[in-house]
């Protein structure tokens, strides 16, 4: 509750900071989401990807 109140007062109250926080949040979210999804994919496909077996075929 206190956190929401402070976030509202500092970020969401003005439209300018609201829009700015959305843009900044989109950049950070994209980075986190994409990297997280890639890490999950690589973890689920461990040993199947070229980067995992590359050392066997390239010197």
């Amino acid at each position, binding site marked *: 509750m206190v956190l929401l109140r402070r976030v509202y007062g500092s970020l969401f109250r003005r439209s300018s900071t*609201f829009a700015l926080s*959305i843009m900044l949040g*989109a950049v950070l*979210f994209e980075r986190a989401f994409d990297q997280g999804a890639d890490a999950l994919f690589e973890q689920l496909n461990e040993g199947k990807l070229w980067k995992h077996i590359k050392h066997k075929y390239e010197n």
Partner: protein
Amino acid sequence: MLSVAARAGPLAPFVSAAAHAVPGPLRPLVPAAAHREHKVPLDLKRPLLCRESLSGRAARGGLVASASLNAPASVRCVHNDVAVPDFSAYRRQDVQDANASSQGSSDSRKGFSYLMTAATGVATAYVAKNVVTQFISSLSASADVLALSKIEIKLSDIPEGKNMAFKWRGKPLFVRHRTQAEISQEAGVDLSQLRDPQHDLDRVKKPEWVILVGVCTHLGCVPIANSGDFGGYYCPCHGSHYDASGRIRKGPAPLNLEVPTYQFIGDDTVVVG
């Protein structure tokens, strides 16, 4: 008053005025047990707020009808048997108590609402960016086309002083291994005498290798290497003379021969494209 009730027509049963809660004359289709706690308590001693609430205190009853010459007759019904639904399931925790002030929790409630809006905005921006990126990248050339657009040339096959032509993207590509005399000659050319002034070192990455698109800038013929007045290229169609750096020196062509993008990989290989 009777005329007003008659004017109500089919609504007449609902227009029944009452100063106290009475069951309506209409029978419900399904006989249901009335929940007494859901009934609105009818407070007959409510403060005097308006004409209708005043009529609640009147001895004569609640049906208020007004009529005038220049206004339509209106009938106000006392909906004192309407059960107000319980909205507490939809209300936030902070405003459940009707007697407590909601001002104190206003900022945190707004904070939550705006947080939801911002999260939706972030998700929308992410999706929109990816959709637009996918759409635009689908317009660009695919990887196999891009792979065909490059040519790898082994430089040790070209002896010094010779020019070799390759086919690259459907056009002739000249790779010229210049001698030291040609390099110093082209470096010493006065730029003010050139039609398309460009220094020799701006057209090459390594001075001994000149890589050019072999299409005359006049009308697109293929120039002949190692000929012409300036020891470079000569276009047989209309007589344009290019020097050993591919710069136009004489004839109708307006521009120097085009230099493609290329990079040297190691000492022996150049990749054009």
